C-alpha cells in the first residue's frame, strides 16, 4: 500500500484506491480546477507585487529624473526649497535595525534554547504564551511606552552611565536626550524578539530527538549537545527566524517614529537623534502638497522596498553559504 502511493500512476495494474478514484466522474476536471485555483492564488501575489513596484516607480519618476543619484547619496532634506537627499533615512533604517538585531538575536535565540531544551515542562506553555503575547502588542503602544518609560530611563540612567564609562568611544558621545538611535534600536529589539524567539523555538523543537540522543550517547554535555547537535541542525531555520525579525525591524514605523527623534542627520553617536525611511513617509506623506515633494517621498518608499529586498537577498546568500553542511545533516 505504501509503495502504491509513491509509485501510483502506472498505466496497468493500478492499485486499488487509484483505480477506484479513476472511475469517479470528473476526477481530471477537478484536478484542473484545483490547479487553476492554487495557481490563481500565487498569481494574485505576483500581481500585487508587480503592481506595487510599478506604481512606486511611476509615481517616483519625477523625483528620479530631477535628482538622479544625488537622491541616495546626499543628506539635505529641505521640503521648503524642494531639495531632497535620502541618505540619512537609509542610514537610520539600516543602523536602527542592525542595532535591534544585536540585542534581539542573542536574546531571542537564548530564550528559544531555554524553552525548547532546558526549561521544566510545566513552565514551557506559559512562558511561550507570554512571549507570543509580546508580538500582539500594537506598535503604537510600544511607542508610548518608549516615550514615557524607556526614553526617560535612558536619559537619566543608561546614557549618563555609558557616557561616563565608554564616553571615549564616538558611539556614546553627546548629550543624553533619551530619544534617539539607541532608543529606536531597543524598541525594535523588544518588538522583534517575540518573532525570533517563537520561530526559533519551533525550529529547535523540530530537531529530531535522535540528534540529541546521539550527542548525549557520545558523552557530550548539555551545552555541547545544544551547540553541536541542535543549533547546527536547525541553523537555516534559525536564520529564517532572524530574517523574519529583521523584516519587521526594517519596516516598523509608528514606534520608531515616536522615539528616534526624527532628525535627518548622520551621526556616529547612538545618543543622537536619527530618522528612518518608514518614519519620514509616515510623518510627511499626508501634508506633502507639491508634486516633487510627494514624488520624493514615494521614491523613499521605493528605496525602502529595495533595501528590504537587498537585505533579504544578502541573508539568503548567507543561508546558502552555510546551507551545504545543514543539508548534508538533514539528508
Amino acid at each position, binding site marked *: 500500500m505504501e509503495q502504491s502511493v509513491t509509485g501510483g500512476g502506472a498505466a496497468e495494474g493500478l492499485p486499488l484506491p487509484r483505480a477506484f*478514484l479513476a472511475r*469517479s*466522474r*470528473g*476526477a481530471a476536471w*477537478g484536478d484542473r*480546477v*484545483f490547479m487553476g*485555483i492554487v495557481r490563481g492564488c500565487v498569481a494574485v501575489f505576483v500581481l500585487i507585487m508587480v503592481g506595487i513596484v510599478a506604481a512606486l516607480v511611476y509615481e517616483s519618476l519625477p523625483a528620479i529624473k530631477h535628482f538622479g543619484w544625488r537622491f541616495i547619496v546626499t543628506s*539635505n*532634506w*529641505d*521640503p*521648503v*526649497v524642494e531639495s531632497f537627499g535620502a541618505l540619512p533615512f537609509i542610514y537610520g533604517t539600516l543602523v536602527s535595525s542592525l542595532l535591534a538585531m544585536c540585542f534581539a538575536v542573542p536574546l531571542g535565540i537564548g530564550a528559544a534554547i531555554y524553552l525548547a531544551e532546558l526549561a521544566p515542562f510545566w513552565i514551557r506553555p506559559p512562558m511561550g504564551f507570554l512571549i507570543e503575547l509580546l508580538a500582539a502588542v500594537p506598535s503604537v503602544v510600544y511607542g*508610548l511606552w518608549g*516615550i*514615557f518609560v524607556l*526614553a*526617560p530611563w535612558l*536619559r537619566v540612567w543608561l546614557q549618563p552611565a555609558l557616557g561616563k564609562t565608554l564616553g571615549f568611544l564616538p558611539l556614546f558621545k553627546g*548629550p543624553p*536626550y*533619551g*530619544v534617539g538611535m539607541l532608543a529606536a534600536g531597543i524598541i525594535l529589539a523588544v518588538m522583534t524578539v517575540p518573532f525570533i524567539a517563537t520561530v526559533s523555538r519551533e525550529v529547535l523543537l523540530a530537531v529530531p530527538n535522535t540528534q540529541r540522543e546521539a550527542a548525549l550517547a557520545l558523552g557530550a554535555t548539555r551545552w555541547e549537545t545544544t551547540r553541536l547537535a541542535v543549533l547546527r541542525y536547525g541553523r537555516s531555520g534559525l536564520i529564517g527566524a532572524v530574517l523574519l525579525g529583521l523584516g519587521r525591524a526594517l519596516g516598523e514605523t509608528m514606534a520608531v*517614529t*515616536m522615539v528616534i*527623534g*526624527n*532628525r*535627518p542627520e548622520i551621526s556616529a553617536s547612538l545618543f543622537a*537623534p536619527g*530618522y528612518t525611511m518608514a*518614519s519620514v513617509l*509616515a*510623518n*510627511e*506623506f*499626508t*501634508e*506633502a*502638497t507639491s508634486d516633487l515633494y*510627494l514624488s520624493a517621498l514615494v521614491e523613499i518608499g521605493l528605496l525602502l522596498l529595495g533595501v528590504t529586498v537587498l537585505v533579504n537577498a544578502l541573508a539568503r546568500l548567507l543561508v546558502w553559504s552555510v546551507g551545504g553542511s545543514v543539508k548534508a545533516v538533514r539528508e
Partner: protein
Amino acid sequence: MRRSTMRGRLVGAILGGLVLGWAAVPAPASAEMLMNGAGATFPYPIYSKWFDEYAKIDQGVKFNYQSIGSGGGIRQITERTVDFGATDGPMTDEQLKKAPGELFHIPTVLGADVATYNLPGNPKLRFTGEVLADIFLGKITKWNDDRMKTLNPGVTLPNGPIIVVHRSDGSGTTYIWVDYLSKVSKEWEQQVGRGTSVKWPVGLGGKGNEGVAGQVKNTPGALGYVELAYAVTNKLAVAAVQNAAGKFVEPTIASTTAAAAGAAANMPADFRVSLTNAPGEAAYPIASFTWLLVYKDQANEAKGKALVRFLWWATHEGQRYPSDLLYAPLPAAVVKQIEAKIRQITYQGKPILAAR
C-alpha cells in the same frame, strides 16, 4: 464518488462565494445625498461635530469627511474627486492655477499654537518673536541667556541647555509656527522658510501634538509648540508671546479670535491670509484660520445648494460649537465678509443663494 462530489461542492462553494461577493457590493443609497470631503486633520473634531448637528436639521444630506491631511485635501479637490476640500495652509497661486475651476477659501474656525516648556516649577514665561526665532535657529541655547532674563525679570532661569522639540509630521500646526517665525525674523525666513515640514536647524522631532508634549514633559529644559486645544486639555505650561502691538498676550480662545478681528480690516478678498503677528492689542500672534475649499461654480445643482446651505449654517449657527472643542470661533466682522463670498457661489453662472 463521495470524494468527487465533495470536491465538486467545494469548488462550487468557492465559485459561488466569488459570484455572491461581487453581487453583494452595495448599490449607492439614492434617498439621501452624499457629500464627500477630504483634507486637514486639525479641524476634524469640529467638522464632525458640525456634520452631526447639521444632520439633525437637514436629513437630506449626509457628509463623509476623510481627514487625510491638507495636502490630500488640496489634491482631491483639484482633481474633483470630492465635493469640498479642507486645508490648514492656504493654497499657493501655482496650486490654484492647476485647479480646473476657481476655488474659494472659506474660513471656518481658528486655531493657535502655543509655546510649552519644562522648567523646575514651570514659572510663567514671556517670549518675543525674535527670541523664539533665535532659540529655534539655535542661536540662543541656554535658558539663562541675557535676553531671556530681560524678558522674564523675577524668574529664576536655570543654567541649562534649551532642548528644542518640534513636530516631525507635516502639519498645519507647524505651518502656523514657522509662518510666525518667518514674519518676526528675517534670518528664519531666509534660512528655513515656511511649510508644513521644514528643515529644522536644531531640535528633536515628536510625532503629533502628543509626541511633542510627551517629549517636553519628559525632558527637563525642553521647549516645544503644540496647538492651543491640546495645551488647554492637558494643562500644559504655556508662554505669553509679544504681539505686533507690543503687548504680551496669553494664548486663549478669546485672544485667538481677536487675531482674526484685528486682521479683518485688511482682509484680502480670497481670505488667503496669514493671521500670525496680527494687529490688535488683544490679538495672540500665533493664530491661523483653517479653510474649506469649494469651487465657485458648482458642477451639480442639488449638491451645490446643499453645500452652500451648510457653509452658511457652519459660519453662523455653527459658530457656537467651536469653543467647547477649544477652537476659536470667527469674529462677527469676518463672518460678514464670508457671507458675501458664499453668495458668489454659482451653478452654471447663476448665484445659488438668493440675496437676503
